[in-house]
Every structure is written in structure tokens, then in C-alpha cells.
């Protein structure tokens, strides 16, 4: 399993995929923005007016040191105070699987942003499924690097799960990009079994 490539851990590829979806000069809200790497890239390359939300104090301070606008808030409490449709894009990168209440947060994203971009590790990858079948234990792999008892990734979802979830929210997936062996592929065939990561552009219908 260790041979599964993890493009989103090598920030650039994942960030490039997101960056390509974003129109220059727009307002972008990055949820779980970490130290502000993506927002800095978007500011420098796409001239976006960015804002991050991050709970970890050290990461929040790093954002401020980078000149990134940041709100030190807990995403699981929703986006209280953020006005409706106040951002062109709301990004949730590599964080969905860590939220206590993903449904609430994604509903909030659809309220605050015209479009939302969500990336997540795909638990439906054939190697993960195979290992699960053979060993009968929760697989540890590069997209899910920690054992079940000490991981921030509390949800293990597949690309198919995500499609169903967005449909149930009454929202629409406008674009799907799948990362397969480090390469972004648009609407890949059998993505649920082949992709390590999913990246979707969604909007309220």
C-alpha cells in the first residue's frame, strides 16, 4: 500500500488543480487554510482577495506573518457571520474527512460561496479495498497515513459517497477532477476505484 502516490501531500499538484479552477481577481475563502500556502499562491498568481479559516493557533499566526487575512475559528461551528454569497469560491482542501459535521459545513459553504471546491482522499481506491478485504483491518496507506485510533481523518469516504452526498444536499457537481498516480485527470473512467484523490467544483442548484 505504501506505493500509493499522494499528490496532495506534495502541495504543488493539489494546489495547481485547485488554482486552475479559480478565475483570477475573485474573492476566495479557504477553510482549514493551514499556514496559508494556497492563499499566498492564489494571491501571487491569480490576484485573488483571500481569507482563511483555521483553528490551530500556530498556523493562524503563520498566516498573519505571511500577510494572509485569517479567522481563527472552528469550522465545525459553521460560518456564522459570513454573509451569503460573499465569496466567489469557498475551498475545503483535505479537510472534509476531518470535520465533526461535514454536512453542516458544506451547507454553509454553499450559502457563503457562489462555487465551492472540495478535495478529499478517496477511500474507494482499489488498493485500499483490496487490502481491507484481505486483511480485514482498516488500511493504513499514504492517503490515510494514521491508524484508526489516532487519526484526524475521522471519516473514510469514497468518490461515490461524495457524489451521493452532494446530490442529497440538492447541490450540483460542476466539475470532477481525479488524481491518479500523481496526474490530474478530468472525469476519469472508474474514478471511484482508480483515484487517490477527488477534487470537485460544486454549486447550489
Amino acid at each position: 500500500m505504501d506505493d500509493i502516490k499522494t499528490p496532495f501531500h506534495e502541495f504543488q499538484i493539489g494546489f495547481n488543480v485547485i488554482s486552475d479552477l479559480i478565475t483570477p481577481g475573485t474573492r476566495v475563502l479557504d477553510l482549514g487554510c493551514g499556514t496559508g500556502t494556497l492563499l499566498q499562491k492564489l494571491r501571487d498568481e491569480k490576484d485573488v482577495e483571500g481569507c482563511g479559516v483555521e483553528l490551530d493557533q500556530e498556523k493562524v499566526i503563520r498566516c498573519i506573518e505571511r500577510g494572509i487575512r485569517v479567522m481563527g475559528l472552528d469550522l465545525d461551528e459553521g460560518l456564522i457571520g459570513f454573509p451569503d454569497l460573499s465569496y466567489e469560491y469557498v475551498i475545503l482542501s483535505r479537510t472534509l474527512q476531518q470535520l465533526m459535521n461535514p454536512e453542516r459545513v458544506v451547507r454553509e459553504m454553499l450559502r457563503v460561496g457562489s462555487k465551492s471546491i472540495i478535495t478529499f482522499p478517496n477511500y474507494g481506491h482499489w488498493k485500499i479495498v483490496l487490502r481491507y478485504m484481505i486483511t480485514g483491518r482498516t488500511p493504513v496507506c499514504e492517503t490515510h497515513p494514521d491508524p484508526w485510533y489516532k487519526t484526524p481523518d475521522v471519516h473514510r469516504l469514497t468518490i461515490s459517497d461524495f457524489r451521493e452526498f452532494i446530490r442529497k444536499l440538492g447541490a450540483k457537481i460542476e466539475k470532477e477532477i481525479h488524481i491518479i498516480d500523481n496526474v490530474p485527470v478530468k472525469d476519469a473512467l472508474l474514478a471511484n476505484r482508480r483515484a487517490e484523490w477527488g477534487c470537485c467544483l460544486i454549486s447550489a442548484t
Partner: protein
Amino acid sequence: MQERAVREYADSDGRYGRVDTQYAEFDGITLETGFFLGPLTVAYETYGTLSPTRDNAVLILHALSGDAHVAGTDETGRLGWWDAMVGPGKGIDTNKYFVVCSNCLGGCKGTTGPRSIDPSTGMPYGPSFPRISIGDMVNVQAMLVKHLGIERLHNVIGGSMGGMQALEWAVSHPDAIRSAIVIAATARLSPQGIAFNWVGRNAIYSDPARVCGPADENSATRRPGRGLAVARMIGHITYLSEETMEVKFGRKLKLKDMNGYRYSLGENGTEGGEFEVESYLEHQGSSFMQRFDEDSYVIITKAIDLFDMEGTYGGLRNAFGKISAKVLVLSFNSDWLYPTAMSLDIVRALQAEKKDVSFVELDLPYGHDSFLVNAGMPYLTRIVRGYLNGVR
């Protein structure tokens, strides 16, 4: 090599050195109540050099008991009240910024206040000093800033009452600042805050040493009585967290040979206090008596009590509509006097008005006073330095 390292440390984290308070004189100011207060003196200090384009000025706003002496040493060698934050290479870098700090209106450290002479009587104002507001304090600061030839401040920054002033600057002088840092503050004092201030003022009012009625010639030289000390003790309890008190004092006793706590009455039916926490409060109270004025305490706490942007403007969103500055709101999770929820009220109203607001709740255990405690300074320094750097 070692010597060089030492010198570099001194250069990057050194003290500002000796600073003297300066005084600016004005004809006067029309207060928000309509009362004309004049003549007006403003005590202030400056640090660093104003750039040729006059765009690097930072105004620091002190809290209730502060003064213009924010950094460096004065003629007696006393360190500034935020020396850990302000100086060469520090969070507010005096090599980069022209830093201004003034004593607030109604204070007792050189700016016109109750100890100043009332021209209509030739005597100090004393308790008859006119009622002032946070807005009046800010208007006086704005006069000073203009007097110094600064049209637009790079930043205004303050904690507690200073944070209220920073917010007031953003609201009532929107074009005069590029950014504001509002620390441990609120847009409206809570009833709990009003209650503590009321008890503090009552301690002063109940003091038999207090001079009532019109001021006389003695009030210029008289020293406040114990009432002010008690007010300060109450204040200090509200500035600290329960955790800080536990860590700092616990149940430790002042005298080590005492076998447990024994309540003992002193000569006048009073007691000196046996616990270290009592001793600490006593020290804070009595040293405050030496350095502060009770009428200033009354006037300033009253201004804090009356600060209510929600009431004044009919809602915070109305108040914040005209703000053009970037705003950073900072709170401390151990601050129970001005808790994070109050900072979030400011943040959410700014968000609703689509202003450029950032927010950080710092995990520091020192209560309301966290912004003054040296142990929290590394975090605060990085935030303030980074934020000032990011303001364009």
C-alpha cells in the same frame, strides 16, 4: 564571535533607551457633550523616525492606568509599560515605524485631566472635571496626530480601553488610519464590567479622605486615600485569570513560619493580609495610590462604562459601515472581563459589512492582562509584527 552574537542580540532585541515626555498645547476641544474644554495639553512620546512620506506612523493607545511612556526608560530609569513590544527589532519595530503614544484625555500623566487648572476658577478641576467619552479621547489623539504632521496612520493599536479607542478610531476617523489592532476589547462594556467599575468608584466615594464638592487649592497636592487602592484591587482581580492566581499565588502565605491561616486583626480593626494574593493586591493598590489620581479614575472608568457603539449607532453594523481600515481583532481565551464572545461580536459585524477583518483568539492563561504579560509576548510579537508588515 561570541561578542558579536551578543551585540546582534542587543541590536535586534534592545531597549529604545532614554525617552522624554513632550507636551503639545491646544486652545481646547469641544467635547461630545458640547462642553468646551480648554486650554488643552497633551503629553506624548515618540520613538523612531517619521519617514519623508509620513506613512510609517503607529499610534499606541494605553489602557485605563497607562501613560505616554510606552517604551524605553524615562528620567528616573522607569521602563515603559509595553517595552516588551515596542523598541528596535521588537513587535512594533522602532527602526521601521514612527511610534507615538499619548496620555489619554482625563488622565493624570500630563494630559489635561482633573489635576489640571480650570481657567474659570484658577483651581484644579478635581471632581468637577467635565464628563468625557472614549470618542473625546480619540478626538484629542487625532489633534495630536495632525499636530505631528501625520495625515494617515499606518496603524492604531491598543488593548482593553486602548482597544476601544482603536475601534473608535476606525469608526470616527476612517480616513486617518490604514489599519487597527483591537486587543482584548469590546464594542460595548458589559453590565458585569459596569458593575465592577461601579464598585471601584464606590470605594473611592466612600473614602473619608476624598475631597467632595468643588476643588480647592489643596486638591493639587493632596494624595488619594485608600478608596483608590481598593478600586485598584478590584480591578486587578478582574484582570487576572483564576489559573494565574492559582499558579502565581496558590494558597501560599506571606509569612513562612505561620502555621496555617490565622485571621488576626490589626490595630484599627483592620488586617494586613496573610495570603500572598492579598499581599499582591495590597501592593498593587498602595502603589496605585502613589501614581494615580482618584478623579481621573472616576472620569476614565465612567467613559469606559458609557462606551456602547451598538447603542450609539443603532447596531454595530451601522457603526462599522464607514470603516475603511483593515482590522485585526485579538482576544484571550482566559479573559473573563472582556471575553472572546465580545470580540466575536465586533468580528461578525465587520464581516457582515464585508470589511477586511482578521481574528485570533490566543490561548494564553493570564486573563485580561495577557497582552501585558511578558510570557505571552513571543506570540503577540509575531502577530503584531506580521500584521503591521502586511498592511499596505
